[in-house]
């Protein structure tokens, strides 16, 4: 069976999607069991895949045993095996967390469909990561997008519908762009297999069709990852969606988009295309820097914690694209590692917010006063993740920043260091407001808490464990950074060779 893990890792989740409504018709809890079990199984399989890739090298799986480039091929190399582990791990963690959180946030009759959609969403993401066929990427992109619109739209407030609709429009434009790009490449080369494209394209680099295709790809995927001027859909989507949706989207969806961008830029097109033909990197460096700063600055101005985290995500995406655009191995390592690191940090932060909403319904930062005593474990997770976002050493945030900064110097662009560090400072500013409120500010009514000592009222263990696990991983991978970094380095070397 191990030989079939490359496909099963996705099929398990994909087939869980129709099974969930079958078993969950009477009671959604069975749907939850299936969803959690499927993601766990998928996570274990992806770990085994990563292990195989690291020891034996690239895996290629032919669907229906049709030889590529005629058949569809699933390819695993250090880059996507790494991303796959990340996606399936977070999907599992969030699934565990979802049980209690969704029960509180959604109407009961929407729970089973939600888990089904959640499975589709995750399967789409994993499929995008695993496939070596460009059209397959589009198919999975649509699966994950459509499921994503549903996951957002079920949010409690009416604004959720509007947010979902905005995302629907922009997401459809993005998907159409990607499809156009695929179409043009197919027109020019007659193939959809990525490896095959990579061989055929260099002769056609001057072709207008290929250039247009590249433009469509970059713009389309930039919308998907919410790169700064194209980020409009993201803040409302994260704010009004159920906590579970915000978490899984913030932690994985944009990351997979970034992965797709890396694939298109460095596997389908080769690095020298960006260097000699289109010079897209300068533009991307500029846009990323603006994204990093703008995201952080706007985040400082937010009073709703989820909006704050959403804008912070927009800034963090800038880090990933910055590392991509610098086009050297150190920065690329930083980018790939940051895909993991940001997923851990943001995942943990959004889970904390979900726990706060579950317990108190508060999302306004000013109302956080005194939470440090009421929910000590949750708030400890928040603090760790926040410190990591700031980039304090021994957390994962520092690792990413280290590689990006040294990578900038290596590219001769010292002026990016102030950008990176300024954004760290801004991150400190907006997170410290929250931490001050949680731990150090006194409630307005002086005597209120003295008369009734604040009892500990933590979120249930099913929510606490995933939240704290992600936060703990921020420290674990911050200390033993060589583990993810060595994989990311392999990926970077492979991409830029």
């Amino acid at each position, binding site marked *: 069976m191990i030989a079939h893990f490359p496909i099963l890792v996705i099929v398990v989740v994909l*087939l869980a999607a129709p099974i969930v409504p079958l078993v969950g018709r009477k009671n959604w809890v069975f749907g939850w069991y299936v969803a959690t079990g499927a993601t766990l199984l998928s996570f274990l399989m992806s770990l085994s895949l990563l292990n195989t890739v690291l020891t034996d090298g690239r895996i290629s799986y032919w669907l*229906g045993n049709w030889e590529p480039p005629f058949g569809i091929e699933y390819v695993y190399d250090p880059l996507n095996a790494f991303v796959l582990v990340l996606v399936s791990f977070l999907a599992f963690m969030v699934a565990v967390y979802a049980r209690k959180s969704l029960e509180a946030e959604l109407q009961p009759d929407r729970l089973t469909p939600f888990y089904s959609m959640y499975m589709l969403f995750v399967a789409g993401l994993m499929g995008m990561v695993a496939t070596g066929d460009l059209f397959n990427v589009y198919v999975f992109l649509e699966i994950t997008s459509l499921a994503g619109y549903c996951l957002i739209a079920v949010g409690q407030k009416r604004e959720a519908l509007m947010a979902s609709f905005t995302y629907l429009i922009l997401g459809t434009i993005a998907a159409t762009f990607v499809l156009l790009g695929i179409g043009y490449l197919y027109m020019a080369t007659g193939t959809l297999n990525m490896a095959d494209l990579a061989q055929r394209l260099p002769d056609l680099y001057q072709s207008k069709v290929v250039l247009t295709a590249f433009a469509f790809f970059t713009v389309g995927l930039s919308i998907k990852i919410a790169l700064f001027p194209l980020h409009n859909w993201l803040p409302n989507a994260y704010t009004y969606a159920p906590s579970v949706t915000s978490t899984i989207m913030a932690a994985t969806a944009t990351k997979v988009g970034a992965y797709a961008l890396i694939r298109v830029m460095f596997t389908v097109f080769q690095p020298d295309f960006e260097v000699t033909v289109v010079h897209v990197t300068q533009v991307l460096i500029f846009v990323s820097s603006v994204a990093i700063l703008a995201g952080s600055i706007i985040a400082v101005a937010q009073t709703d914690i989820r909006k704050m985290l959403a804008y912070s995500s927009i800034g963090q995406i800038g880090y990933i694209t910055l590392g991509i655009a610098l086009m050297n191995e150190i920065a690329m390592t930083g980018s790939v590692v940051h895909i993991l690191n940001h997923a851990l940090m943001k995942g943990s932060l959004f889970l904390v917010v979900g726990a706060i909403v579950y317990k108190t319904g508060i999302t306004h930062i000013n109302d956080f006063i005194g939470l440090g005593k009421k929910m000590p474990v949750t708030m400890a997770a928040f603090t760790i993740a926040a410190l990591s976002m700031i980039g304090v050493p021994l957390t994962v945030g520092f690792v990413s920043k280290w590689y990006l900064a040294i990578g900038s110097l290596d590219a001769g662009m010292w002026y990016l260091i102030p950008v990176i560090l300024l954004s760290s400072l801004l991150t400190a500013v907006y997170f410290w407001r929250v931490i001050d409120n949680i731990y150090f500010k006194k409630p307005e009514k002086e005597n209120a808490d003295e008369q009734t000592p604040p009892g500990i009222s933590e979120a249930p263990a099913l929510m606490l464990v995933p939240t704290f696990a992600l936060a703990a991983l921020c420290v674990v991978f911050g200390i033993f950074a060589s583990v993810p970094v060595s994989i990311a380095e392999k990926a970077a070397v492979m991409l830029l060779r």
Partner: protein
Amino acid sequence: MAKRKMKENIIRKTAARLSIPFIQLYALYVIAHGELGPGGGFQGGVILGASVILFILAYGMEEGVNRVKQWKTDVLNSVGVLLYGGIGILCLFLGGKYLQYNVLPVSDPKLASQLGIIGIEIGVGITVAAIMITLFIETARRDEK
């Protein structure tokens, strides 16, 4: 009043009763013909779903929902996809790759491929038909809540 008129509309009902079997037969033909000629699970599924929609149009929502229970369409939705995925996984157990039909236990590998494709076309058809019906009912019926 409107409902009553609908019920009394005998011409429409009869026309529907006459044509629905043929539509459904045609749908099955399209599905079964998928691996050789134009057509296939999706098109056939749409036609199959259309026949049920015609029934609901002719007999009214009340009667339609009575005949086509929601749980049935829900189950069919899932069953179709599971049929597709199940055949894929069955190939794995028979020693092939995912969706490698020619390993199916039939004398001739070509025939096996054909059977495998018909199998997944049927799966697609079931799901598409069920989805068509669900979509129609969900958009047409008044929200009672």
